[in-house]
C-alpha cells in the first residue's frame, strides 16, 4: 500500500494504453532496417526508374547502382554528390530513435502518464524536425548548384525534389513518398496519440475501462 499514494494514482496508466505504447515503441525497431522515404525518378530512358531509399541511418539506391547513377546524372546540372557520409543526421538519427524506443518502453513499463505525454510530444517533435531537416537537405541539393562547372544551366530552375508528391525536374518525373519505415513511423505515432487519448479519457473516470481496476 505504500506505493498507492494518491498523487501517484493520478499518474498511472491502464494496461491497454501501456500495451499500445509498448507496441508503438517496439515497432520503431523496424526503422533501423527499413527505409523511411522513397524518391523515385522516371524518364524516357529510365523505364524502370532510378530510386533512392532514405532511412534513419542510410541513403541508398533502390538497386545497388542507382545512387551512383543519380549522382552521375546530377553532375550535368552541377548538383553536389549525394554522399551518405556527408550527412551527419544519418549518424545521429539512430540514437534519437533508440531514445524514442527506450522512452516509450519506459512509459509502458513505469505506467506513468506524464512519461507517456512527454514521450509522445518528443516523438511528434522528432517527426516534425526530421521532415523539416529532410526538406532542408532537398532544398540544399536542389538550389546550391555548382554553376561554374554545371553543364546544363537554366536560369531560375531549381532541382529540389518534392517532400511528398510529384514534381517534374527536366526530363525526370520525381515522386517522393513514405516508404515502409515511414508508414511504420506514422502508425507508431498514431498509436502513441491513441494511447494518450485513452489515458486522458480514463483519467477522468479513475478506473481502467476494460479491467475495472488499476494495476499499479
Amino acid at each position, binding site marked *: 500500500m505504500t506505493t498507492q499514494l494518491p498523487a501517484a494514482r493520478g499518474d498511472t496508466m491502464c494496461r491497454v494504453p501501456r500495451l499500445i505504447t509498448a507496441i508503438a515503441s517496439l515497432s520503431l525497431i523496424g526503422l533501423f532496417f527499413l527505409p523511411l522515404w522513397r524518391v523515385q525518378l522516371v524518364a524516357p530512358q529510365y523505364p524502370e526508374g532510378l530510386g533512392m531509399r532514405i532511412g534513419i541511418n542510410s541513403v541508398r539506391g533502390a538497386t*545497388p*547502382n542507382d545512387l*551512383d*547513377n543519380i549522382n*552521375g546524372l546530377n*553532375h*550535368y546540372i*552541377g548538383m553536389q*554528390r549525394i554522399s551518405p557520409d556527408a550527412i551527419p543526421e544519418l549518424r545521429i538519427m539512430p540514437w534519437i530513435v533508440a531514445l524514442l524506443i527506450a522512452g516509450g518502453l519506459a512509459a509502458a513499463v513505469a505506467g506513468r502518464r506524464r512519461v507517456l505525454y512527454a514521450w509522445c510530444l518528443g516523438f511528434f517533435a522528432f517527426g516534425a524536425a526530421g521532415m523539416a531537416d529532410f526538406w532542408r537537405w532537398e532544398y540544399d541539393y536542389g538550389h546550391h548548384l*555548382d554553376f*561554374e*562547372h*554545371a*553543364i546544363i544551366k537554366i536560369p531560375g530552375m531549381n532541382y529540389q525534389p518534392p517532400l511528398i508528391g510529384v514534381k517534374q525536374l527536366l526530363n525526370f518525373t520525381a515522386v517522393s513518398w513514405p516508404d515502409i519505415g515511414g508508414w511504420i513511423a506514422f502508425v507508431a505515432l498514431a498509436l502513441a496519440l491513441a494511447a494518450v487519448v485513452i489515458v486522458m479519457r480514463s483519467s477522468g473516470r479513475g478506473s481502467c475501462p476494460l479491467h475495472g481496476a488499476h494495476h499499479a
Partner: protein
Amino acid sequence: MPRSRIMRFTIAWVALVALAAVGYACAPSGKSSSTTNLLAGDAAARVYVAPGSYDEYYSFLSGGFSGQVTVYGLPSGRLFKEIPVFSQFPQTGYGYSEETKAMLTTTFGQVPWDDSHHTELSLTNGVPDGRWLFINANNTPRIARIDLKRFETAEILQIPNAAGGHASPFATPDTRYVVSATRFSVPIPQADVPVASYKQNFKGTLTFVTADVPGKMDVAFQIMMPGYDYDLGHAGKGPSDGWFFFTTYNSEQANTKLEVNASQADKDYIAAVNYRKAEQCIADGKAKKFGGSYVHNVVDPKTGVASSETKTGVTMLYPADCDGLVYYLPTPKSPHGVDIDPSGEFIVAGGKLATVIPVHSFTKMLKAIADKQFERSIDGIPVLKYEAVIAGEVQKPGLGPLHTEFDGKGNAYTSMFISSEVVKWKLGTWEVLDRIPVYYSVGHIMIPGGDSRKPYGKYLLALDKITKDRYLPTGPEGSRSAQLIDISGDKMKMLLDFPTLGEPHYAQAVPASMLQPTSLKFDKLSENGNPFVTMGESDGGITRHGKRVDVKMIAIRSHFAPDILEGIEVGDTVYFHVTNIEQDWNIAHGFAVFGANTSGLTLPPGETRTLKWIPQAPAVYPFYCTDFCSALHQEMQGYVRVSPAGSKVALMANTSHTAQAGR
C-alpha cells in the same frame, strides 16, 4: 489486194494483238498477284509484335560464310544481334582487341574468318536447356561455345586430324559430347601424297569433344574412318541414346569432279556409332595414341581476357580394333541430313539425290546387328542389309530432300532443295500430308526444339539459299532469306519472309522465357578482374616499360579520364586499357584513336577492353567515344601527343577531371 481481203487481214491482226494483250494480262505477273493473295488472312497479325512487346522465341541462325551467329526473334523476324564467333568483327573489336584476339588462334596462327554452319543448343535430357549454343567452323575445323547469359563466344576448340568440320557440333542428349566429322577426307596424319592416291591414303575422322564443363572443351577421342565425306550427324535419344549417326557421301571415294564421280552409287551410308562402346574400348586399352596438334581458346570469366593453349596428341580408335563400334546403314543417295525423331526410333535420311525419303528403324538396326545381317565389311565396319534396317520410304516426296525436323505430334517436315518446298509427312505411315513452296531452294529447316525430344511444334523456319525476285535488287550481291511457316494446323501456312545475314545453314530456337531471366544486363565493375582495370575517375594513368606504354583510362558519361596523354614517342607500342565504369543497363561507350591500324572498341558497362596502337609519326592524335552515349557524347574526346623518339617530353596523363567537371 482487194479491199475485202485487206479488211479481213486487218481484222485478223487486230484480233491477234487483242488476244496477245489479254494473254499477257492474264499471265502470272511475277509474284505480286500469286503470293500476296495466298498470304491473305491473319498472317500479319500472327507475326506482329507490337512496339515494346517481346518475341515468343529467340532463334540462333548460323552465319555460313560470315563465320558468326545471328539472333532473330520469332515470329517477328526482327534481328537482335550478330554474335561474333569465328570471324573478326570490327563493329565490336572482337578478334582485334587484346582481350579477344586470342579467340581466333589456331595451329595456323590467327585465322580471322571461317564458315560457320550449324548451331546446336546445349541439352539436358535431350531437351534444349538454354545454357550454351555451340557452332562449328567448317574451313579450319573448330567448335565454339557461346554463353547464353552473355550472348558471347566463351570458348573455341580446334579439331585436329580433320579437314572440313561439317558434321558438327551436334550434341548428345546430356551435352556430354559434341561432335565433329570430316567433310573432306585427307591424309591423316597429313602428308605430301598425290591426290590420285586418295583410296590408299585418305581417311576421315569422327571426333567426340567433351562439352559439359564450360571452359574445358577437349577432344575425348577420334575414330579413324574410311575416306568418305562425312556430312551431317545427330545423336540418338530415348531408346537410341548412346548412339550417334553420321551421313556419308562419296563412298565412291572420288578425288576429282565429285559432282559426277561421287554420284554413281545407288546408296551411300549412314554411320551408326556406339559411343558407349567407344568409351568401353578406350577403357579396355583398345585405343591408340595418335598425333595431331590443336589449339584451345578460352575467355577467363574473371578477367574477361582470352588465352590460347596448344595441345598435342589424341586418343584414336580404329573400328577394326573395337568390335561393335561402328555400323554402316546403306542409304540412298548422297544423303545430307540424318535426323532422329523425338521418340528416338526413326532415323530419317535426306538423300539429296534420292527419289524417296528413306527412314531406318533403330529397333530393326539392333536386330540386324544381333542377327548379323551384314552385306559386307569395310575397314572393319559391317555394312547392314538395307532391307533389314529400313522402316519405310516416303514415296514421291519432292526433289532433293535435305533435312528433316519434327513437330512432336507424329509429323515430320523435310526440306526439298530442288523442288523448293517443305513437305509434311507422317511418321509410321510415310504418307505425304501437305507441301508448301518456299522461295527459293531451301536448305535446312528449323522447328524450335525440332531436333530434340520435345519440339515446340508451332513454327517452322525455312532457310533459303536464293532470293532472286523476292526482294528489290541490291546489286549483284543479294541476301539469303528465311520464311516463317505456321505448322500449328493441318495445313502449313506461310506467315513471314525476312532477309538473313551471311548464309544460315541451320538454326536453333527456344522460348524467350528460357533465356530472358538469366540474360546478363551488365558486368559488375567490382568483379572486373582485368589486370588493367581502372576502377574510378582518378585511378587511371600512364606507365612506361621500355618501349611499351600502358594507358589506363575510364569512360563514363561524358568523358574519358585521363583525356590528355603526353610523353609517348614514335617507336612506342601503346596499349589503351579503357574501362567503362558505368553500372547501368545498356550504357555503352566506344573508343577509337585517329590512324590506329585496328578496329575501335565497344565498351559495355563494367568491362575493360584494350586497343593496341603503334603511332607512326610525331603529331597530336585525337581519340573519342564512338558510341552515342549521352547528350554530351560529342564532347567525349581526348588527345594523345606523340613526340619523336628520344624526346624529353615527360610522361603525363591528366587525371584531374574530378575538379574540372565537378564530379
